[in-house]
């Protein structure tokens, strides 16, 4: 049956005085279309189906209709601009120990490495591989010195305090291997680059061959981390950073503004980002739906008459006056790819901005604001 449930019909009927107040614009359109369609079919059909109505009423929940005089709230949007984490998180000690142990067990159980499939006999790569293998006894480069098939193959667990499984040692081992050295500094004979006997000086005399320098990866802790620069996007690369601004009252909040005219929440959020932080940011709004809300009711239920001026960027906005009982702020999720905020010509009198992780946001915003915001911010 295509009959609309009783609740929707009740909301959509002309008798409902709170239709405009409680239902959003697009839903109002959809419901009124449905009610018009069903009114037409009801007129055509002689007797309405009695079986569906008691079922529909029992299934559909009673609609939430305000019981009181109509109260207007100031509708606001706030983009929550975030930079997602750029690095993976640090492993804790259990994970490091577990992964190292599993890799060593794999060494004991996996098929042996087929050397001549990768290193041809007679090529210079072959003796180099043989030398490296003699040093570390295993084809793997990230499990330290361990011979899975030898007499001490049973000794696969490392001792407490061993740094073999740490990220730094693994990276160091890989770089040393790429540079042609053995993964662990052994003795004088292995220092430096590949050695070769010199024809003029004689065998045994070392000659400096060309050193292979492999570029080391950048540190996970950046300059911005060390200096605590909250304006930098390079800080805390393994965490999500959120953009907070200090408004004209000195409060730290997400950039916010009223929704003007007939614009949607996501349109308002994009406009607010441009009007507050400038156009030098490559941002993307995730979806058209809010991820949270914050309601603030004016104290002692006294409304404030606010003068709404037309916004230059919104074509459908008009000058008007409205009596408002509070503010309802909806947060829209956005991601930044590149750029930085520029408060030089912002329309809201914003003083400062900062990129903050979740616990730092906690330290700066008010308590009731934090209560509304904390569950939509990500831990990492």
């Amino acid at each position, binding site marked *: 049956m295509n009959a609309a449930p009783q609740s929707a019909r009740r909301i959509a009927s002309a008798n409902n005085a709170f239709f405009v107040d409680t*239902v959003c614009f697009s839903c109002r359109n959809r419901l009124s279309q449905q009610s018009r369609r069903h009114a037409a079919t009801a007129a055509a059909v002689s007797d309405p189906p009695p079986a569906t109505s008691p079922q529909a009423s029992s*299934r*559909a929940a009673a609609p939430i209709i305000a019981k009181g005089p109509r109260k207007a709230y100031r509708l606001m949007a706030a983009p929550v601009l975030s930079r997602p*984490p750029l690095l993976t998180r640090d492993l804790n*000690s*259990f*994970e490091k120990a577990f992964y190292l142990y*599993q890799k060593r067990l794999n060494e004991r159980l996996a098929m042996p490495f087929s050397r001549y499939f990768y290193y*041809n006999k007679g090529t210079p790569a072959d003796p180099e591989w043989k030398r490296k293998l003699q040093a570390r006894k295993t084809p793997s480069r990230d499990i330290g010195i361990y011979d899975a098939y030898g007499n001490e193959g049973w000794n696969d667990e490392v001792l407490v305090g061993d740094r073999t499984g740490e990220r730094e040692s693994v990276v160091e081992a890989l770089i040393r291997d790429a540079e042609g050295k053995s993964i662990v500094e052994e003795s004088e004979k292995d220092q430096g680059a590949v050695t070769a006997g010199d024809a003029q000086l004689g065998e045994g005399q070392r000659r400096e061959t060309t050193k292979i320098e492999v570029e080391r990866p950048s540190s996970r802790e950046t300059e911005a981390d060390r200096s605590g620069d909250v304006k930098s996007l390079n800080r805390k690369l393994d965490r999500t950073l959120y953009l907070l601004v200090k408004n004209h009252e000195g409060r730290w909040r997400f950039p916010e503004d009223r929704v003007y005219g007939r614009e949607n929440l996501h349109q308002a959020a994009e406009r607010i980002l441009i009007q507050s932080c400038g156009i030098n940011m490559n941002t993307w709004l995730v979806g058209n739906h809010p991820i949270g809300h914050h309601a603030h009711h004016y104290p002692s239920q006294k409304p404030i008459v606010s003068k709404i001026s037309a916004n230059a960027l919104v074509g459908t906005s008009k000058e008007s006056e409205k009596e408002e009982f509070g503010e309802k702020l909806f947060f829209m999720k956005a991601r930044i790819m590149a750029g930085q905020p520029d408060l030089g010509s912002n329309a809201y009198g914003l003083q400062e901005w900062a990129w903050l992780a979740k616990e730092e946001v906690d330290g700066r915003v008010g308590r009731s604001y934090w209560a509304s915001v904390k569950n939509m911010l990500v831990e990492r």
Partner: protein
Amino acid sequence: MALQEVTNAFLKRFRGCNGPLYQASKLQCRQYATAGDGQETQELEKSGSTTTTSGGQGMRELEESSFLSSTGGSGKDVQKFDPARTARKRNRRLPPSRYQYKSPRYYRGPLHPHQPPKPSDPSSREFEPGPFSLPRLEQTYHDTFASDFMTMTYTHFPPGFAPHQKGDRLRPWLGESPYYKNRPLRGPRGGDTLKLLRKPITFRNVPQLERVTVHTMVKGAIDDSAHLHVAGMAMQAITGVRAEAHKTRTSVAGFGIREGQYLSVTCDLYGEDMYHFLSKVVDVVMPKIKDWKGVRGSSGDSSGHLHFGLTAEDVALFPEIEVNYDMYPPRMIPGCHVMIHTTAKDDRDARLLLTQVGIPFYGKQIN
């Protein structure tokens, strides 16, 4: 009486007494998730132990654990312990029972003295070495993709509005004809295929990557089985997983194949292998493919599983094959199909997830 298990029901009966027996049994029963009895946890709460983690406040409820802190133990006992040194110093040879253990080959029932160890135990015959790393793609999915996906696929209903209740999709034959009795139900409206029902996306059912299947069928193996061996080696190299060969099911004269010939190879990737393979394909192989438009928008089986193909030149771009490209016989490296299975119920959600992963799509997108 012999007490097999101390249950809550038993304790309830005891609670009335509150005598010495009840106190004794309470001491032996674990009442909380943390180790130790209730008294220990109370002491901990009083002392107000705090652990330093990124979570902050929420972690104070957990006990302090050395796993959460990064430093290992230290001390004289730790410095003295070196099993390898003890073994080297030993002059006599140990009896084999001291260092050898083979788990039972057959399971002989729950009462047998020799019980097989769990498959997670390294001494088990079914043991497979577990995860070796925390893949970057998996972390990014849980941190970034999943919440973005929920936000993008949220559908709003006004308060008090329930969506239109739909009837059963397999409809009975209704009418006066006696032949309608016990007739099999009619198909769903709009077609004969019963598509998967798509439920609203919440934090509990965000589509995830489930499995990746890499498959090649080599025609050259009809005449020469070496082609299949090379294909298997190539697939094992790029996926890191042992390849499985398959026989043809039927004879098709048009393709020139007979039934029972080994002509194709597949590799099934789950978990860590899957994430590593996908990030390799998206970050290393796809950018290098010449004049590649992307994955076709119509790819998919309407149930959330998408597929695309890689030619032989594309497969040669994998770093595992590039490193010893000359060891493969010329023109024997095969192309392959890559099938990505997700927990999405329709192709639209699966495509959105793969777009987040980084796979570009072109052309009209069809569910």
